[in-house]
């Protein structure tokens, strides 16, 4: 396929994405001037992903499974220290 034809197809594609500002560039040097277009395309493509709506019912609350896990870890730490304290009080080492 000829380069000119390829460029024309690409221009049509870009125009379809609303990026007509780049369609006039059909020279062999188009690659060097099309970087901004690529950036724009990337932004256009990624934008919907980054703005994906949060799961239902979680939008207004930061309380979730992670919260529960964190609290559980804290309770495990408390359990360990209480186990030592319980040993100290119920069966003191060396009795004195």
């Amino acid at each position: 396929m000829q380069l000119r034809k390829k460029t024309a197809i690409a221009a049509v594609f870009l125009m379809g994405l609303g990026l007509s500002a780049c369609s006039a560039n059909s020279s062999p040097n188009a690659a060097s001037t099309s970087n901004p277009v690529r950036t724009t395309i990337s932004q256009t493509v990624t934008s919907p992903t980054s703005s994906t709506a949060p799961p239902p019912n979680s939008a207004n609350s930061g309380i979730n499974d992670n919260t529960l896990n964190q609290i559980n870890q804290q309770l495990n730490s408390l359990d360990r220290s209480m186990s030592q304290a319980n040993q100290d009080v119920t069966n003191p080492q060396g009795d004195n």
Partner: protein
Amino acid sequence: MNIFKKTTIALALSASISAIGGSAFAATTSTTSAPPVSKPSCSTDFSQAKSLVLTELNNRVTSLQSLTKDVGNAKYLTSNDSAALSSEITSEISGINALITSVNSTTTCSELRVNAYSMVYTYRVYLVMAPKTHLTISADAVTSISSELYNLEPEIQAAINAASANGKNVAQAQSAFADFQSQVSSAQSASNGMDQTLLAQTPAGSPGNWSTFVSSKNSLETARGDLHQAHTDLTTIVKSLKLG
């Protein structure tokens, strides 16, 4: 066994020394009396008695070093409480090490007895320092965790309200939340000021302060149960509102 009975039997080292056959310190003492007078038989078993005292001293150093590690690893211990405990433990290690030096140079049973007496009554590693340290760590943990759970309450209520506004039946979540608030409140009350009470306990106050350690332990055990129940309540809330 009752702690006071244990104290009577074992604290003055007399029982331990007797156990090796020397009866060097066979006379029991009250917890406030002066060191008993050495019996003549001590002279024949002096090396054994000295070795036993050194073993007991080294065991105490090991225990105190373990307490130091526990303080260093305690995530929820406040900086002030950590500093207070560390200072006291360090001081005890220094004192016990000084006793080791002293015992190594003793040549008489009476000298050995004075050092052994000091080891028990001056430092109270097992009857004061150990429970004091671990209970303070636990009390601060209860305070920290209950405070964190308390701070979640507005957010939990908001989530319940939002779910209700969306037409969801929130009866189960609201009931669990009411219990959550009650459990957190109980835990907060149990640990409030307890660290200061514990830090105020000294070797000189033993064995009279034993009841403070027992009651603190019992209160913290209850608080620990309260916090576990609060966690269960929050799990119920998250699941019923599908917040996970």
